[in-house]
Every structure is written in C-alpha cells, then in structure tokens.
C-alpha cells in the first residue's frame, strides 16, 4: 500500500520529480553546474522560450497548436529593427509596432481557424511560411543589426538586481497565471478545452475564446523575439526557426496536454522551460559533443512525453475501484 502511494505521488508530480533528477544528475557530472551565475544564465536563456511557451500553453489548453511562433518572432523582430534603423523611430514605439505585428499574425491564425474552420496544424504551418516569407522579403535575407540602445537593455536590472528579460518573463507568467486561474475568461478556456460541445451548450462563446489564444500566442511570440534581440543584437534569416518545437516541448514537459483542457503556466510551463534550458546548459558543462547535444535533447523530451502518456494510464489503474472486499 505504501509503495502504491509513493508510485502515485511520483506519477502525479512527474514534472517536478524529473526536474529534480536532471538537476542532481548534472550537478554530479559537473560541480560547476551548482553556481549562482549558472542559474542566472539558465533563467536568462529560459526567459524568451518561456514567454513564447506561455502563449503556447493558452493555445494548447483549447486543444490547438501554434507552429507559427518562430516565424512570428522573426517577422516582428525584423519590423522592429527596420523601424529603428531606417525609419528612425525611437525604440519604444518601434517595439509597440512589432508587438502589433505579432498580434496580427495571431489574428490571421484566429480568423482562419475559427471562421474558415481550418485545422490549427495546417493553418499555423502556412502562416509559419508566410510570416518568414514576409520577413525575408523585407530584409532580402540580410541580417538586421540593432543599435546599442536596444542591446544595452539586456544588461539593465529591474529593482537593481533582476535582469530585464527575467523580469519580463516573470511578469508574463504572473499575469498569465492570474488570467488562467482567477478570471472568468481563464476558467472558460479550461472548459472549452475539456469539452467543446458542452461549453457551447453552457453559453460560452468558444470561438471567441479560441481566437483570443492565437492572438495571445502571436503577441507573446513577438515579445519573446524582442527579448532575444536585446540579448544578441542581431537577427539573421534563421532567427527563431525551430523555436516552436522548444516552446511546445516546454509546455508539454510542464504537463500540458495536446488534447486540451490540461496544463498550467505556473508551475507547469515554467518548470518545463527551465528544464529544457537546464538540460542544454548541463550538456555544455558535461562537454558533450555539440552535434550530439540536440539528439540527446530530443531523446530526453521524447522520454518525458512518453512517461507522461504512460503515467495517465498508470494513475487510472492505481485509482481503479476495488470491487473485492479486502
């Protein structure tokens, strides 16, 4: 009976358990892993994928998917850079316009999915190509550089000790958690993801809710893109490409279901994101061949998702009603 309870605890908190295991493992392999500097780096690197993964969580909650976030990052970052460099716009309005660009891509997704009734997978695969295509058209695939006024932001500290990108990430997480847990909108989102037909019968405007998640995802992708350019100062043609995979993986590692209705921003997606960054940092510390790293990364994500699918059936089995009198 005791082992049963232990097994159940591990299964129900598999994300946290995995997190701790990976943490200890890399600590043992490379003791330098346990330094404050390293943790700050991990958090810094986690923030942009984290911001995008929060948006992805909203979409996943409705049972949808957004494959266009990587390209949205690129397009909005390009627009931002061009406005500053060529139109001479100050940084703040340029960033606002670039966020608007993200929102627009999300709106196109939303329109196609809720009005034209296209499948999210195909729709966002198409907008992925279109958004990157626009970006390449604008830049002629030449890299865009950002002035110091942008890159210096990455060294600024909020309240004197929180790096800006981590602060933005934390604010996004806080806001998203409140919206999901405490507002009518958030709870209805969970309802839509659980049972669309019942949600409609309960008078929930499901199309409007679903549409909004793609717009949130687009907006946060643009914000994630901006946070990245403050760190690297330069955007080339491959910017953001493949990041949708990391964002989806972070949300799913954090317990979000691809079928909708299940998932949290905090702790779920945050843990998932930090876990991915931790593995990446750990692989560097452990001196793993740089070409092998992505394979190991993907293998770890695969096993985490596999554990997740197994655990659901296992939990059900453990909680199965006992007919026989003990």
């Amino acid at each position, binding site marked *: 009976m005791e082992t049963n309870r232990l097994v159940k605890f591990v299964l129900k908190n598999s994300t946290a358990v995995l997190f701790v295991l990976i943490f200890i493992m890399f600590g043992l392999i490379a003791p330098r892993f346990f330094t404050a500097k390293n943790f700050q780096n991990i958090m810094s690197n986690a923030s942009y994928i984290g911001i995008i993964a929060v948006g992805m969580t909203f979409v996943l909650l409705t049972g949808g998917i957004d494959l266009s976030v990587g390209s949205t990052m690129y397009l909005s970052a390009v627009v931002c850079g061009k406005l500053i460099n060529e139109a001479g716009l100050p940084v703040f309005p340029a960033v606002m316009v670039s966020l608007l660009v993200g929102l627009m891509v999300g709106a196109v997704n939303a329109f196609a999915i809720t009005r034209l009734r296209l499948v999210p997978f195909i729709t966002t695969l198409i907008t992925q190509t279109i958004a990157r295509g626009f970006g390449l058209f604008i830049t002629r695939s030449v890299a865009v550089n950002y002035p110091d006024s942008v890159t210096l932001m990455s060294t600024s500290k909020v309240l004197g000790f929180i790096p800006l990108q981590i602060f933005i990430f934390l604010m996004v997480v806080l806001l998203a958690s409140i919206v999901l847990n405490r507002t009518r909108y958030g709870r209805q989102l969970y309802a839509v993801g*659980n*049972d669309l037909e019942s949600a409609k019968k309960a008078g929930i405007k499901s199309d409007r809710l679903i549409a909004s998640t793609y717009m949130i995802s687009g907006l946060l992708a643009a914000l994630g893109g901006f946070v990245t350019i403050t760190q690297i100062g330069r955007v080339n043609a491959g910017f953001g490409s493949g990041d949708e995979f990391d964002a989806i993986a972070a949300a799913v590692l954090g317990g979000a279901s691809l079928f909708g209705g299940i998932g949290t921003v905090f702790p779920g997606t945050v843990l998932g994101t930090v876990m991915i960054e931790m593995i990446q940092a750990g692989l560097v510390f452990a001196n793993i061949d740089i070409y092998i790293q992505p394979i190991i990364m993907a293998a770890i994500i695969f096993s985490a998702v596999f554990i997740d699918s197994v655990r659901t059936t296992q939990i059900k089995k453990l909680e199965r009603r006992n*007919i026989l009198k003990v």
Partner: protein
Amino acid sequence: MAEVVFAYKNITKRFFGVHALNNVSFELERGKILGLVGENGAGKSTLMNILGGVLQPDEGEMFLSGEPYVPESPLDATCAGIEFIHQELNLFTNLSVAENISISSFPCIRRTPFIHRRAMQDSSRKLLQSLNLDISPNILVENLSPGERQLVEIAKALSTNADILLFDEPTTSLTANETENLFAIMRRLRDEGKSIIYISHILSDVQELVDDIVVLRDGQVMGGGPIADFPIHRMINLMVGREIDNVFPDRIPSIKDRVILSCEHVSETGMVRDINLSVREGEIVGMFGLMGSGRTEFARMLFGIDPYKEGSIVVDGEPLPKHNPQESIKRGLAFITENRREEGLLMDYPILENIGLVSLPDYSAAVTRLVDSKRLFKRADEVASSLRLKCNDLKNQKVKSLSGGNQQKVVIGKWLLKDPSLLIMDEPTRGIDVGAKYEVYLIMERLASEGTGILFISSEIEELMAMCDRIVVWSQGEVMREFRREDFSQERIMRIAFRQDIDYDMEEKVVVNGNE
C-alpha cells in the same frame, strides 16, 4: 384549480414533410411532476427541443404562465426559467464542482473580470447541501462518481433559479440508491413549487414518481391524465399501439450437451475472485448483480480486453489465450458492450461500415486483402432484414440517425456476421423502448435455438428470469450462487445479490478472506 405553468397548444413539426409532431397539446401544472413516455422516435426529443428553443415549431403555440412563449435559442429558454438535465452530462471534468455550477455566469468582484471565489463557493455549497450531496465545492468533477455528477448537473440547473426542470433519462448511470435519492430530491423540488417534466423508459419508475402522465406515439398524444388512471400495461398499449400481452417471448429451452465455455478459478486482484462458470450450446446464462459487482469486468476479461491473474478459460475444449481479443473473435466469441455509443458503434459512420467492421478480414480477397464489398453488402443486408432493422439506406445512412433500438440491432448485426458460438450481451436492452426490447429478446431466443450460447448481463431481474436457463448471481466480484430456471425466485436472487441471504459456510469464507 391548479395553476398551469406551461402549455403546448397544437404543436406541429415536420421534417422533410414527415410529421415528427402532429397537433400536440398538453399542460404542465405548478408543483407537479409530469411523466412523458413514448417509444424512441415518438417525438419526445423534438418536443423538448422546441421547449428549449433548439427547434421552432411549424405550427402551434406555447404558453408560459399564460403568456405566449417563443424561444429562439437555448439562451431564451434559460432566461425564461427552463432548465434541462440530460442523459449525457454537460460537465467539465477538469474544473471544480463550484466552477461547473457557475460556468455560465461566474460571480465577479464588482466590475472586474476576476471571479469572486468566496461567493462562488458559498452559493455552490448551499446548493449541494440542499441536494444532500456531501462534497466540497472545490473538488474536481473528475473525482466524482456518476451519481454525484448527476447531482452536480442538477445543482447547476437549480443555480439559475429555474422554475421548470426537465429530466431526460437521468437514472441510466445511477445505482439503485442514487436513483432513490434523486427521486426524493425531485419530490422535494416539486413540493417547493417547481414544475418537472420527467422522461424515462423505465415505466415502473415513472409510475412511482410522477403525478400526471402524457403518452406519445408517432408524434401524437395518445393519452394523458393522472398517473392513477395509467397502470403500466395501459401505458405500454398506448405507446406501442397494439395489445402486448407478453413483454417477453416464450422460451423453449434448447440446451445441448456440448460445453462451449468453461471458466475455472478465474481471479484478478481487486476485481474478481475464483470465478467458475460454464455455458452450453443453446443455453442462455444470466448474470445478475448490483452495479459494480464485477460482471462487466469479468466479461471484459473473458473477451480478452483486460488481463486476469489466475485461472483458465476454455472455449470448445481448447484453452483461450489471455488478453487477446482478436483470438477471442477468431474462436467464436462476440461481445455486445454496455455503452453502444462509446464502445459499440462508430456513430458518424454508415450502418454498413458498422455491421462489416469485425468481419472485414472474412470478406477480404486472399492475396490483395481488398474487401469484396458486394458480398459484404449482400450478407449485411440479409442480417439487417433478419433483425428487422428499420433504415432507409444501409450504405449511406449514419448510425447516429437511428433510434436507440435500431442502433442496438446494428451492434448485434455486426456480431451475427461472424456467426458467433458464444455471445456476451452486456445490458443489451438498456435505454431502448418496449417494442425494441421485445425484438432483442426474440433475437436471443432465435440464436439460442440455433445453438449459440449466450451470456446475458442485466440489472433488470424480470428480463433475466424470463429469458435465462440459468442465472448466476454476483456480488462484490464473486459468484454467490447459481439458480436453475425451475428454482428462479425474484426475492431470493435479490437477497443474495444484496448479501442478505448468505449461508453459514459462505459467511465464514468471507470472514476468513477478510483476515488474510
């Protein structure tokens, strides 16, 4: 003179020129429970959809407390104080009880979008208490039993202060105790002045619960009035439109010597213990027990869907491999599951595809494996007509457009194509009307006389006693006793199922096991 809360007046509705409802009029009085009965397809759902604003009538009017009532959407019905409690629950399993109850109108803190959680929990707690449901409003619905979920659905309906409540087959997934509790609550709501419409196929329940009754047939009101004037046989006659003297066909026992199935000492931790059971050619063996007594679980093990730890299952003298449904099908087993919608049918697919589903390998060419659709259609058509399946187009008509009874015939037909030697039927008559039930019984009788062995799981003791050669009584995962047809006694079977009539030696066995 009682106050009329709601009235249908000369309602007519046609679908593609066919009358679904023809000049229907009746009234619902305040503080009364009105029973609405009729065969599947008699027009009950159409009538309710009109009340709920889902459909608009072609002719006729409705009146709510004397005022004309013209709902254009489900929202209008809700605003008018009419709430529906359907057979299929509309709950969100990932949300809490309180959130489910207030999903359509969350109480918010002043004008902010933030939910006033305290207010939401308090109002839910009050509603739950009024329904004698002792659960926390913060518990997730996925952790509730079907009965508790049903009550949460009712709490949801009551949260809008509805005046008229409509219950559509609410007891199908409830245990006997939960059903009793539900009826007590419905009576109390009635006494508090709510008006209730109750739809059910279980006529004895209707008789016990309602004050007035309306009987529908082919879209017309066949009769109505105080329930005292409508004994069950009169309800049935009005519903079916012909005299049914017997609800069950005559059984001519046709048991042969050959043993088709024999199970020895089958056990699985926490599920079933030491099950010994046999079925002969042409024999109908009933399995009676309360819900959750292990009958369905055992049937699933037998068919190979779930594994079992100990014991052996022998079919036609050869041991049957564990946990392998394909092999079970090859060996002549067939399994009609208890939920035809979820487990028995592809609802959005045509009848033919459903009937052919299991037999596709038999109708495939030797090398190419292409399906010989002509031969399949011919055979499916034969089976459909032998089952008297009412449909327009075998190839194109979707299963979901059929009535419950005809859907069940499709499930049966699917297995008949395999000519099974052992047919397991789990609650095959649940949720279908009297006429369709009779036809299912006739099919069983015919199959048995042709030599098929049938394992018949049911919670309705009357049908088991009428149809079975033997009844095996289950309780808490064990077979308590077997009765032969000549020893059938409703009282004794019930007492054993409730463990009220255990012999001394059995009592001791239970104690010994308890001490292990």
